[in-house]
């Protein structure tokens, strides 16, 4: 139980991830599905950046004015990559949603089943 309480931050991110997953699965609207996906991505980014944090640590900029401890630079760099990929996913998904609306006149998944 002690270990579980220490990791409260991580539990919060799992809950955020689940909120996003539920939006993705349960909502028929394609835009809301995309928002759910974005919430899931945010949860993962927050989780990984938090795992690189050190208590009382400074930003990893080593210019001689600050002496350690420094937060780990690796998760931050990886998540920067991840954010750009998330932007690309959002852009492509939005373009596809626009095209679906042009072709079918709706973006509700359950209505789209009947359009064929």
């Amino acid at each position: 139980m002690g270990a579980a309480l220490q990791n409260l931050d991580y539990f919060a991110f799992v809950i955020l991830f689940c909120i996003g997953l539920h939006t993705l699965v349960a909502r028929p609207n394609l835009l809301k599905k995309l928002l759910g996906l974005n919430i899931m991505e945010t949860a993962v980014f927050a989780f990984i950046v938090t795992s690189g944090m050190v208590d009382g640590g400074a930003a990893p900029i080593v210019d001689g004015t600050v002496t350690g401890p420094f937060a780990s630079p690796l998760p931050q760099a990886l998540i920067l990559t991840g954010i750009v990929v998330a932007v690309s996913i959002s852009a492509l998904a939005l373009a596809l949603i626009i095209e679906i609306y042009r072709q079918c006149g709706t973006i509700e998944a359950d209505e789209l089943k009947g359009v064929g």
Partner: protein
Amino acid sequence: MKRLLAAMVVAAAAIPMFAGVAGLPAPGDAGAPAHTRVAARYVEAGVRETGAQNLVTGVLLNYRAYDTFGEVMVIFAALAAVSAVLSRGPPARRPGEARPQVETSPVVAFVIRLTAPFIAIFGVMVILKGHLAPGGGFQGGVILGALLVLLSVVTGRGLERPLLPAPAARWLQAAGPLAFAVVGLFGLACAGTLLGYPAGPGADMLRAAMMLMLELGIGIGGAAIILWLFLQMRGE
């Protein structure tokens, strides 16, 4: 029924994740293996090996330059895919449905025009100081891209008369991959590996120039791509 199914999917994802994170070292614990082994190495040798005081930039452009190259290609591919999906096809509105005409507020237009040069200077500074201070190509590129989007809205210039002329924009959108190609081949010539950096104490200027070129390519390319994504989605 559908709700029950959704709840079951969420539960099936949540339970293993809760179990997994409960076993991790506490966040902020400086004794965790990730900090004592991986991060300590970067903090100790990063500045000497990469020449970048900002270790995030050092990791991004030097240790993991391949990852960053991949990321630049991903956003470029996203632009290509969005253009392919949206560039042909009927207009987004059905015939007879008029485009809603909303005039831009003169106050908003004036304030954006007034602040535009300062935003541009800030964006360029974030790009150029990326290896010394918080910032870098992506961040600065997003600032410049947002500025271009704002100006497009205020001046009402869409795809047919874009802020950046189309032939130039095509090259600017490819600035990221092109910068990586040039720096990668240059590294191949001087260090023997693709995207390699010349080693040794005398090569500091050269390494800084290579990183700066990557940052500029990423920043300019990012700004042009963001503007084009916006214009494609707005249409007309």
